[in-house]
C-alpha cells in the first residue's frame, strides 16, 4: 500500500482485499464490551474538514478513537481559514504540532493530493472527499457492504467482487462517490453500469471502465446491487433536468422498480438521502436497503485504513524485504 490514500484508483486488487479483510476483523471490535484497541496510542490524527459533513467526520472520529489515536477536529468555520489562511499555512501549522495523519475533506478536487505531494507535511494523508474527484473510504465501505451481502461475511474473506453487476444511478457528474466506486469496483472485478440522464454524465465517461445507460428499467433486472446517488443541488449551477418530478419518475427508485430487481439484489445509498427524489420512503425503509449498514461498515473500513497506514513501521522498501527470517523470534 502507498503512504497516503488519495484515490480509489491507487489501490491494487490485493490492497483493496487486504483492507476489506482487515475491516472484517475490525467489525468484531464493535461487538465487544470494550470497543477500543490500543494500536494507535500516542499517534495524533487531525480531521481537517473544509466542507460540511456529518457521517464521514463522525465515522472517522469514531474509528480514530476506537484505535486509541489522539484526535483533533478542525472545521474551516470558526478557524483561521475564514480569516483567509491558505491550505499551505494550515498544513504547516499542523506539521509544527507534530500530527501523524491528516484526514482531509475539501471542496476543491485535488486538495488532498496537493497536501500529500507538496512536501508541506510529513503526515499520512487520507482523502475524506475532495470536490467532485474522489472519496476512497466511501468506495471501500460500499465494496465491503456488497461483499458481505452478496458473497458472505466469512465466505467473503480474501475474495473480491468478481462478476458482480453493480449499477450506479443518478448524479454521476457531481459525484466523487461514483468516481471512486467505478475505480474500486473495476479493480475488484465487478461489472459497473452507470445510469443517468445524459446531462448528469461527465465528459469523457466513455473512457471509464464501465458501461453507461440512460434507461434504468432495463438495467435493474441485471443488477446485484443498485446504488442511488443524491442529486447534488449545492453543486448545480445550470438546469440539468426539466423538473424534479420528471427526474424522479425516470431515475428514482420506487417500490415497483425495486420489485423488478433480482431477489438477492440490494439497494445502496451513500447518504444523505433525499426521500421522494432519488429514492422513495418505501424503498429507503425496506430491509433490502443497506444505508444504515453502510454507516456501521464505514467505521470498520476507516479503522482498517488507519491501521494499515499508521499501525506499522514506515517502510521505504517494499514490504517483502522488511522482515527477513524472523519466524522464530516472534514467539
Amino acid at each position, binding site marked *: 500500500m502507498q503512504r497516503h490514500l488519495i484515490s480509489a484508483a491507487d489501490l491494487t486488487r490485493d490492497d483493496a482485499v487486504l483492507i476489506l479483510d482487515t475491516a472484517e476483523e475490525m467489525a468484531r471490535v464493535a461487538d465487544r464490551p470494550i470497543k477500543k484497541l*490500543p494500536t494507535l496510542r500516542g499517534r495524533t490524527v487531525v480531521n481537517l474538514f473544509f466542507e460540511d459533513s456529518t457521517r464521514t467526520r463522525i465515522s472517522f472520529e469514531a474509528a480514530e478513537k476506537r484505535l486509541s489515536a489522539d484526535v483533533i477536529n478542525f472545521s474551516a468555520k470558526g478557524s483561521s481559514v475564514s480569516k483567509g489562511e491558505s491550505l499551505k499555512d494550515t498544513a504547516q501549522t499542523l506539521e509544527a504540532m507534530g500530527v501523524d495523519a491528516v484526514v482531509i475533506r475539501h471542496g476543491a478536487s485535488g486538495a488532498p493530493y496537493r497536501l500529500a505531494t507538496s512536501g508541506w507535511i510529513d503526515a499520512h494523508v487520507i482523502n475524506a472527499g475532495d470536490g467532485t474527484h474522489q472519496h476512497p473510504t466511501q468506495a471501500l465501505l460500499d465494496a465491503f457492504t456488497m461483499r458481505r451481502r452478496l458473497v458472505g461475511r466469512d465466505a467473503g474473506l480474501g475474495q473480491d467482487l468478481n462478476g458482480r453487476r453493480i449499477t450506479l444511478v443518478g448524479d454521476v457528474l457531481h459525484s466523487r462517490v461514483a468516481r471512486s466506486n467505478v475505480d474500486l469496483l473495476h479493480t475488484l472485478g465487478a461489472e459497473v453500469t452507470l445510469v443517468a440522464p445524459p446531462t448528469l454524465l461527465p465528459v469523457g465517461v466513455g473512457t471509464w471502465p464501465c458501461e453507461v445507460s440512460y434507461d434504468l428499467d432495463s438495467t435493474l433486472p441485471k443488477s446485484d446491487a443498485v446504488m442511488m446517488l443524491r442529486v447534488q443541488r449545492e453543486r448545480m449551477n445550470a438546469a440539468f433536468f426539466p423538473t424534479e418530478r420528471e427526474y424522479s419518475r425516470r431515475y428514482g427508485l420506487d417500490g415497483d422498480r425495486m420489485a423488478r430487481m433480482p431477489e438477492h439484489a440490494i439497494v445502496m445509498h451513500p447518504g444523505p438521502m433525499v426521500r421522494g427524489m432519488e429514492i422513495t420512503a418505501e424503498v429507503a425503509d425496506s430491509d433490502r436497503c443497506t444505508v444504515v449498514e453502510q454507516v456501521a461498515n464505514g467505521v470498520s473500513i476507516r479503522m482498517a485504513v488507519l491501521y494499515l497506514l499508521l*499501525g506499522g513501521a514506515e517502510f521505504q522498501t517494499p514490504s517483502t524485504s522488511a522482515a527477513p*527470517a*524472523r519466524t*522464530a523470534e516472534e514467539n
Partner: protein
Amino acid sequence: MDTHDPQSPAASQADARPVLEAPDIARVMTRIAHEIVERAKGADDVVLLGIPTRGVFLARRLADKLEQITERKVPVGSLDITMYRDDLRLQPPRALARTEIPGDGIDGKLVVLVDDVLFSGRTIRAALDALNDIGRPRAVQLAVLVDRGHRELPIRADYVGKNLPTSLRETVKVLLAEEDGRDTVLLGAKQAPQ
C-alpha cells in the same frame, strides 16, 4: 505466534533437525489435557483460547482431548494479539487474524491460552492485554507445545509440552498438519542476516 515468512521455511528446514515427531506431539497434547483436568479439578469452567495461527490448531486438539477425558464439550476460541503487540511500529503493518470468543464469554472462567512456542514472552503479555479488553477471567493459564527459553518478561507456562534448551542462534519451527501438512517440531540454525 507465527508469521508467515515466505523466504524462511524452505531454506531453514534443509538443515533443521526434528525434535518432536507426530506421535510425540500427540502424546504431549494428551498429557497436557490430563494436567489441565487435574489442576482445574475437572475442567468445568475451562475456556481454551489459541493464539493464531498454530496455537488455534493446538487449542482445538486440546479441546478434543479434554472432551474425551471429561465427556463434556470444552469451549474453544482464538485470540488475535496483533493489535496489542509491542513491536507494531518496528515492522510493516501485519494482516489481522480472527479473534473468536466462545458464546458464553470468558468472565469468571478459567482461560487457558494455547500457543506453539514460548520464547520472549512478549506474545503472551500482548495476549493478557487483549484478554483484559474482552472480559475478566477467574484465572489465566498458559499451555505451550515448546518452551525454548530466553524470556524477556516475567512470564512462565503452566503446561509445557517440551522444554527445549536453545541458543539464540537457533530457530524453532512448529509444523502442524492443519497448516503445514505434517506434525513436527524443527530445530534449525538461524541464517546469517542478508
